[in-house]
């Protein structure tokens, strides 16, 4: 060894191939992790579970033009936009399509009093506290997070609902705020161009003194 004692010993040459392989694979691995981490699979965009009853928002909210708040009636006053009780369905369905086999699970729930088990589509992490009332009453439309529900036969998740998605709007709410009376008009505003839309938003931001917080504490408790 002598003066070369600080040089790698001979046997370490055998490690060279392994090192090369690692050097090649590691970047690929990183790319994979990043791509996977941000992909719709992990953010759940497009998640479209099959519900126990094939309820069509397209028919009810789109064709029939029912207001979102007919069923989700707590949305303006409470954090949660309640999934309607079975009773709500039978305000109409005791008359209409009463014998449809699709309604069988609903009838069962209606008669036994056992709840329907719907599958949650839009699911925020438990450490994020979102209030529907705080957004809807200030003119953030349902469409901003849920998309055109009135055109969905089966509801799916359209936006990432990630923190970045929330912050995007909290940083720059202009293009996403409207007259609180129009929040359930999902088709409203598509005819505007970007500037008109922002103009409209600014008006309501000023009128309602909106200043969306970007502090952690606004969602995390």
């Amino acid at each position, binding site marked *: 060894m002598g003066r070369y004692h600080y040089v790698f010993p001979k046997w370490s040459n055998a490690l060279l191939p392994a090192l090369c392989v690692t050097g090649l694979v590691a970047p690929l691995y990183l790319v994979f992790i990043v791509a996977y981490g941000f992909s719709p699979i992990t953010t759940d965009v497009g998640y479209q579970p099959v519900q126990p009853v094939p309820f069509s928002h397209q028919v009810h909210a789109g064709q029939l033009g029912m207001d979102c708040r007919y069923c989700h009636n707590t949305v303006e006053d409470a954090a949660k936009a309640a*999934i309607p009780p079975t009773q709500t369905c039978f305000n109409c369905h005791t008359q209409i399509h009463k014998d449809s086999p699709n309604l069988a699970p609903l009838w069962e729930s209606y008669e036994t009093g056992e709840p329907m088990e719907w*599958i*949650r589509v839009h699911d925020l992490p*438990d450490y994020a506290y979102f209030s529907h*009332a705080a957004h809807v009453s*200030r003119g953030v439309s349902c469409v901003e997070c849920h998309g055109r529900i009135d055109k969905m036969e089966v509801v799916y998740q359209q936006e990432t609902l990630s923190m970045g998605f929330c912050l995007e709007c909290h940083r720059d709410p202009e293009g996403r705020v409207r007259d609180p009376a129009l929040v359930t008009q999902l088709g409203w505003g598509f005819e505007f161009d970007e500037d008109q839309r922002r103009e409209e938003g600014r008006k309501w931001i000023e009128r309602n*003194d909106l200043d969306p917080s970007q*502090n952690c*504490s606004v969602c995390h408790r």
Partner: protein
Amino acid sequence: MSPLDHNRPRGKAYWRSLDDLADTPEFREFVFREFPAGATEMLDSGERRQFLKIMGASLALAGFGLAGCRRWPKEQIAPFANRPEGRVPGAPEYYATSMELGGVADGLLVTSFDGRPVKIEGNPEHPVSRGGSGVEAQASVLELYDPDRSRYPMLRETDSRHQSSWHAFETWATKHFDSLGNAKGGGLAVLSEATESPSVGDMRARVMKRFPRAAWYEYEPINTDHEMAGSNAAFGATYRPQYSFNRAKVVVSLDSDFLLASRAMVRNTRDFAQGRKRLLDGTSTRLYVFESAFSLTGANADNRFAVRSRDVSAIAALLAARLVPDAAASASAREQSDRATPEVLGLDAAVLDQVVSDLKQSRGDSIVLAGPRQPAEVHVLAALINEHLGSVGRTVRYTPLPDATQSVPSITSLTKDLDSGRIHTLVILGGNPAYDAPADLDFAGKLSSQRLKSVHLSIYDNETSRLCTWHLPRAHYLESWADGRAWDGTWSIAQPLIEPLFGGRSPLELLAVMEGGDVRAGYDIVRRTMSESAKRTDFEQAWRRTLHDGFLAGSAATLMRPDVRRPACIAAVESIWQQWAPAPAGEMELVFVPDTKVYDGRFANNGWLQELPDPMTKLTWDNAVLAGVEAAGRLGVTTGDRVRVTHGDRQVEAAVCVMPGQCSNSVTLSLGYGRPHGGTIAEGAGFDFYALRTADAMGFTTGAVEKISGHYPLAQTQDHHAIDSTAGKGTQARLPSLFREATLQQFKDNPRFANDHHHTGAHAVHRLSLWNETNLEGAVYAWAMSIDLNACTGCSACVVACQAENNIPIVGKDQVLRGREMHWLRIDRYFQGHDPETPRSVGMQPIPCMMCENAPCEQVCPVAATTHDKDGLNVMVYNRCVGTRYCSNNCPYKVRRFNYFDYWKRGPEREMGLLHVKPDYYTKPQTDMHPLRRMQMNPEVTVRSRGVMEKCTYCIQRISVAKIEAKNAWVKMTPEQKQRQPRATVPDGSLTTACAQACPAQAIIFGDMNDPTSRVSDAFKGARSYQMLEEINTKPRTRYLAKLRDPAPVGAQEAGSAGHEEPNHG
């Protein structure tokens, strides 16, 4: 030289514990290493390599975890099939109810989410509670969800017990009670807990109508027998004294812990705190306490005298003799009373003179009260003195208790009847007499007699249940209809918030089974009682109103002014002197006190209460023999040593805890621990001193204490989280700056004493910051908190309220021993004075997060997990936290808590060996939280996992909700309205934190300091307001109002003026 330096040669003026006073290595260790065990292992290279190996492996494993296809599991939403009107999923609902304990009902307001009661608060509209609550009420929600609760009726047949059903019981009961009915109930007895419930009274009358020859007994281990006997002797009838501490200028407590160990604790504390405000006007207001144990009332006294409990009767007689001419000792008693010299009683000669002159000076504005431990004679004399001084009708009033039963005579006669075989069927409604009945009655032995048919209704399958023929699960008060009488007699309703989880039934429903009538449901019984009593045509309206309010308005008992019968007083004085004798040398007095946490033992399986540090001893998870410093020296023991306590031929082996201020000739034994069948939490906790308590000496007795071999670790939190701003140096110089207090005279001389240079420790307050300060300009709100040390008694209701509100786990005794308790809010207790035997005073200081505007924790977090928000709150983002604990290290107030082990999932561990846990504690797979425990979680607060730092948030969930609601309402206003009110605001007083809400003394004020009219702004403007460690420029949002005391210049106070011995204070 610091102006406080001259104190040093005489030892410490403020100390957290005896270890602190003596500056032992153990205390220094706690100050030096905040996380004593395991924190510095990384310095050792061998440990580090091992650590890296494990971490590497866990990282590799974490990779597998990524392989799911959704971020979290599929979730279902189950809406109501038919949602009740007005019900909003996920929104809180509030119901008024009440909880009866020891025969007195507390008015409560319960928060319920989606049908799950999660938080208990005092009912703000209830005339007695007025929003305040004690620790028992706060913690009772945990009992509802206790997995150890009894789930099935159990039937004992000869030697075996087996699971049975309500149906089987009812079949048996119908047959059995029918046959008893034929005998008119001969041989039937009912043993009830103390209760003033009108419905129970009504059911009792109905049961007695069916069984005229049956007998009814009542027993409560923590009772007011002596008070009742005293009242009977003095007035010829049973009255309950109602004290107005808010109006009293002089209060003399004869062994009474009215600020904690009283069922009127909430009202007393509020009134007392209100009375202390008189000091701010410069009016003298004094509390004298004569007691043996160092109680919370003693800690709040201006002058406290440690005397034997037995000598308190002599003191009462001496006081009476000097105040009331009729009460002078007769010639025959004179000889005895002359022996009771101040030296014999252990008092300074001037003490009684001072008390007498103070009482005479404030005629009509004084209260003399005797504790429940003291014999009836002392109660008679207290009533006599109050009457003679003209206090009756002003500070002392009486309400009648016509139906009250004295516990000990009752259970003694029951035992006799069991012995003689007169009783063959015993129905026990609640309680646990096999565990807590007087030891000499051998109640457990009588109960296990084979020919006795016994039925026990109880929440737990406890010691008594095991001996009874039938054990029946009892419905929790949050599950059943009931009623009771509050301290002032107000008829308070208990309504269920949830269906019985385990099909339990209430005592009313069991009585209905016995009665055999048609009305069986609790609701119907309570409603019937009230409608029959009210006899009103508009009853429906009154009933609805009662359910809404939680009580029947105007139903308080009439306040009366009965006359004290003079012959009774003369007899009382005679009797006191006949029985009193000076203490023989070496005799030890044993004083029994209800435990400040588990009460009489019924809350022993409540983890929140077990882990709550006792306000005085700061002991968790155990009780102990509390011995004074001198007594411990005499016995040759120190904290944790095992001792044997003997009373006659009864003995208990226990551990000793050295308590400053404890009378040197007596030891304090708190009841309720050492439960053999208490449940998984109670298992192995503490020592059962009921074994020494006999029917003739329920309050105190004499006995002996001797050292035996062995050591028992006691988990005291007193040295944990010691504030030490200058790394061990100069803590003493700094302490008067942490806890600031002054005497009335000092306050008069210098009203701004709290901010003079003595208190700031002569340290310059630096206003230059090392870094850019958080920009809070333009903030709508600036949340802040003011804590009035003058009002705070240290009762700890806030600590439990915080735990319930914020989903704070319990960690277990083992982890508490390591300094890892999770309470976000702690109460620092400082003894003051140089003599550990007689501390001059006690300082109680609740410490939540200070919400520093210049938060030192934020500067050191490598991942910005703790940041500032615009409202000035120092917020903790759990999901960002990687657990470096730098923030905790850098927090000068020591308010940050680290979750080491997913305590929610593991449950508390208690291992007897010092600092040893079960080997699998760290490695065993973490099961999910028990589904029952999960039901108690506040859904508005994140349940933190391990490896995450957490701390007080100022109840940010409440702030968020209030802000959202205010803004929602504002947005909906018309433009004209908006012009009048240009921005959304949360009205002052409409939002408060859990601690401030619970505080019976109303010592904590929370609000917006941007609003110049808010209560917190007012408090900050006050002369007594100060910031803790202001000199390090943290700009805390939590500030304190300095404490005032008004000690008389006698006793321990003579050694120096109070405060910090500044001759020219200020």
